[in-house]
């Protein structure tokens, strides 16, 4: 067979057809992944700009750049965009779409047309949600607690409808991936040889399919409450506001697993690849993700310890919260141990993986703190919670997504990025992120409530540090955007396997992959991280170092040919 070369293959998924029509009607999972990448990046950009506005307003007490109503709407829109339009689709829809079928040795997902439909449903939902901006006021945060949410403006009609519609995209994507994993694995790719990224997307998909209908119904009820006053949640109409909270968190706690499980998958692949070692506790990491996907449904009440739910339910929720937290801690230990006696290569993706282990641990430990009933009474709805969930969502999901993006970038676009700039940006992101959110722990536990437009002078120093941090973070992220775009046009051509990785997207496809991924179906004969069983990868020195001049060619793509 032909060996790959650093030059892009003559025909690949981006150039096989060039018309606009070929893009908008494409059913190629890779192109859909790229379209998602553009869409979620735009959502992240918009949400990020709002975040900077919010932080700027908080740089000093009193009015700084906007009034309270504008402020309240800014943080709300920031949250809605980040949660529903960015973080939920981010890893599954971008990397899941691009990478998962290839890692399975498949030509595409099980239902390619449905996959395209999911993308359009997502777009429509996002547009509906954004219409709210024009129509009027939406404030009060992404949680939409009744009866406040139904008592102001009509904007909430559009936001809830938007979330409702985006939910279908999430459900259909999940369904598609579940079937794909079950039905489309290459010969020899047994369950115990699946890359952990596949396992994690599989677990995520289960949660998406089971949990998302609940937020759909909740949003629909809220919509009807606002539109025709059916009186489910508003006490003035005979409803119960605590019921809304139960509905909301019944989805939104499992949703935090939609946000974090894919990150676990990315990190597992990165730790294995860049340590050139088997991921410790492979079975544990794989199966506990699936277990969490189910058990995660039993802890929603830990968001409601002071809401007026019964003491007994609070106690039960607290206990289960802990029992679910433990496997997560064990995973972190496993990832660290993966480096033990390995060959640790500190390229940019690995830097993000290590960063993740630090920031996500802080998020996890503070989660334990919040799960303690008596302490949560004090910390609930303060900046401590804000810091906690940013450490898990940004410090967990986003950092992992950045790691994954840098890892798969050469595969997606056939070019390397500038390694030096990438490292500087990673450092800026790390410093900026911690500077932004760590002071929020301190002011939160000292009593600073969340969703506050104004604050008392004693909190000023922490708010200022946080605002400063957000600018550093912003610079880091814009830098990534900058060298990313530069790389698309000027980046060095990427070899097929610049990292010396073992999963199929690296060993059996070109950078960029063929429209049909593989020239013929691969046969898998070893585990995803069995480097010691892959001498052919390393005999003649390893593949590229990303930044180095030209990567020697190392991939012998037909070793496992039947």
């Amino acid at each position, binding site marked *: 067979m032909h060996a790959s070369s650093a030059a892009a293959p003559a025909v690949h998924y981006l150039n096989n057809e060039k018309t606009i029509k070929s893009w908008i009607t494409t059913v190629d999972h890779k192109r859909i992944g790229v379209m998602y990448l553009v869409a979620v990046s735009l959502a992240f950009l918009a949400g990020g700009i709002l975040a900077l506005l919010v932080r700027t307003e908080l740089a000093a007490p009193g009015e700084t750049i906007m009034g309270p109503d504008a402020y309240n709407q800014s943080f709300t829109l920031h949250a809605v965009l980040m949660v529903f339009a960015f973080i939920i689709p981010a890893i599954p829809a971008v990397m899941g779409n691009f990478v998962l079928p290839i890692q399975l040795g498949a030509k595409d997902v099980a239902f390619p047309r449905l996959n395209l439909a999911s993308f359009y449903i997502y777009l429509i939902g996002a547009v509906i949600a954004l219409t709210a901006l024009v129509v009027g006021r939406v404030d009060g945060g992404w949680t939409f607690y009744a009866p*406040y949410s139904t008592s102001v403006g009509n904007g909430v009609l559009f936001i809830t409808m938007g979330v409702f519609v985006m939910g279908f995209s999430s459900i259909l994507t999940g369904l598609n991936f579940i079937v794909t994993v079950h039905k489309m694995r290459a010969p020899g790719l047994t369950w115990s040889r699946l890359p952990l990224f596949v396992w994690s997307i599989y677990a995520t998909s289960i949660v998406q399919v089971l949990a998302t209908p609940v937020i759909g119904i909740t949003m629909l009820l809220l919509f009807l409450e606002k539109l025709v006053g059916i009186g489910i949640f508003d006490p003035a109409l005979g409803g119960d506001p605590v019921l809304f909270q139960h509905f909301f968190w019944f989805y939104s706690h499992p949703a935090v697993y939609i946000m974090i499980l894919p990150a676990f998958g990315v990190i597992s692949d990165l730790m294995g690849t860049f340590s050139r070692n088997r991921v410790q506790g492979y079975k544990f990491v794989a199966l506990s993700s699936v277990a969490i996907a189910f058990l995660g449904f039993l802890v929603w009440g830990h968001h409601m310890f002071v809401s007026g739910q019964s003491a007994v339910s609070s106690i039960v929720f607290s206990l289960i919260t802990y029992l679910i937290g433990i496997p997560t801690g064990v995973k972190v230990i496993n990832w660290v141990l993966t480096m033990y006696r390995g060959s640790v290569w*500190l390229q940019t993706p690995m830097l993000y993986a290590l960063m993740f282990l630090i920031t996500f641990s802080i998020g996890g430990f503070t989660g334990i703190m919040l799960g303690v009933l008596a302490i949560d009474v004090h910390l609930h709805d303060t900046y401590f919670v804000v810091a906690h969930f940013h450490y898990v969502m940004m410090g967990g999901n986003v950092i992992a997504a950045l790691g994954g993006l840098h890892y798969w970038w050469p595969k997606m676009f056939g070019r390397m990025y500038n390694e030096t700039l990438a490292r500087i940006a990673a450092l800026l992101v790390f410093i900026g992120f911690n500077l932004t959110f760590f002071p929020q722990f301190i002011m939160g*536990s000292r009593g600073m409530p969340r969703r506050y437009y104004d604050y008392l002078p004693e909190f000023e120093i922490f708010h200022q540090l946080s605002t400063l941090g957000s600018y550093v973070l912003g610079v880091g992220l814009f830098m990534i955007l900058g060298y990313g775009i530069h790389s698309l046009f000027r980046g060095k051509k990427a070899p097929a396997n610049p990292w010396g990785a073992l999963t199929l997207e690296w060993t059996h496809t070109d950078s960029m992959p063929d429209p049909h991924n593989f020239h013929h179906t691969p046969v898998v004969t070893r585990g995803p991280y069995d480097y010691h069983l892959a001498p052919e990868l390393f005999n003649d020195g390893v593949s590229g170092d990303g930044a180095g001049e030209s990567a020697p060619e190392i991939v012998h793509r037909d070793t496992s040919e039947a």
Partner: protein
Amino acid sequence: MGENGSFWLPEAASTIAPEVDALFYFVYWTSILFFVGVVGFLIYFAVKYRRKDHSFVPPAFHENKWIETASIVIPTILVLIVFTWGFKVFVKMYAAPPDAYEITVRGKQWYWEYEYDNGVVVPNEVHVPIGRPIKLNMSATDVLHSYFIPEFRVKHDVLPNRYTSLWFQVDEAGEYQVYCTEYCGTSHSAMLGKLIAEPEAEFQRWLSDQNADRPPEELGEILVASYNCAACHSVDGSRGVGPTFQGLFGSERQFEDGTTVVADENYLRESILMPAAKIVETYPPAMPPSYSSLSARELDGLIAYIKTLQ
């Protein structure tokens, strides 16, 4: 606020606060210990096993059952300790002592309204006596709010359709910040209040001063409701456990022992302060003696109100 607190937590001003803080710092130091462990190993491994030779392939590494087991068992034990401890303190926070002094709190966009059982209603600045448990019975009149005093480590949501409560006890006089911590609209961040804890005597003086500018009849009407006189005395002529107040003033009273008297101010005062002194004919001696501690102003108010009911 910061001055008496620790780095992480504000001053511990309520009786429950030190218990919460002990738990907080237990979780905190345990977490720090684990965190330092994780990051320490992370850095150590990343440096020690840093790739030097690009063609080096580490031999297959077999998992260590001991580490695997320990990393599950130890955290589980710790977590169960923390859970049990947190649960015990939580139960204490949850159940107010039965002898607590009760104050009604209403959350409104965007202020707190307090009502004492002598009818005093004050906005935003609440006074409480020190040295005894205080229970706040809370409800909202519009949307959700949440009542939070960081120095006391207490917080509870305030709902429009039901009563919720929280309790605390402060032993030292002081002024504390009250926040609303459930988003409630434009001025959510301005829904701030003060809680002033003071010795019982000062508190009582403050409380009675609050009624100073209220006309006595009006005060009396409020007191009849809040002291629950209305449970036994009607104001419309109907018979209850006790005689009606309607037409009472100036009428001739018949007593068990056969004597009579015309109901004037002195008689009313005596009936309230010492109900057992004269028992109205056909009625049981059921009126409690607990009203002997009413202040002069309150008595005047009650009498003035009864006089209006002709």
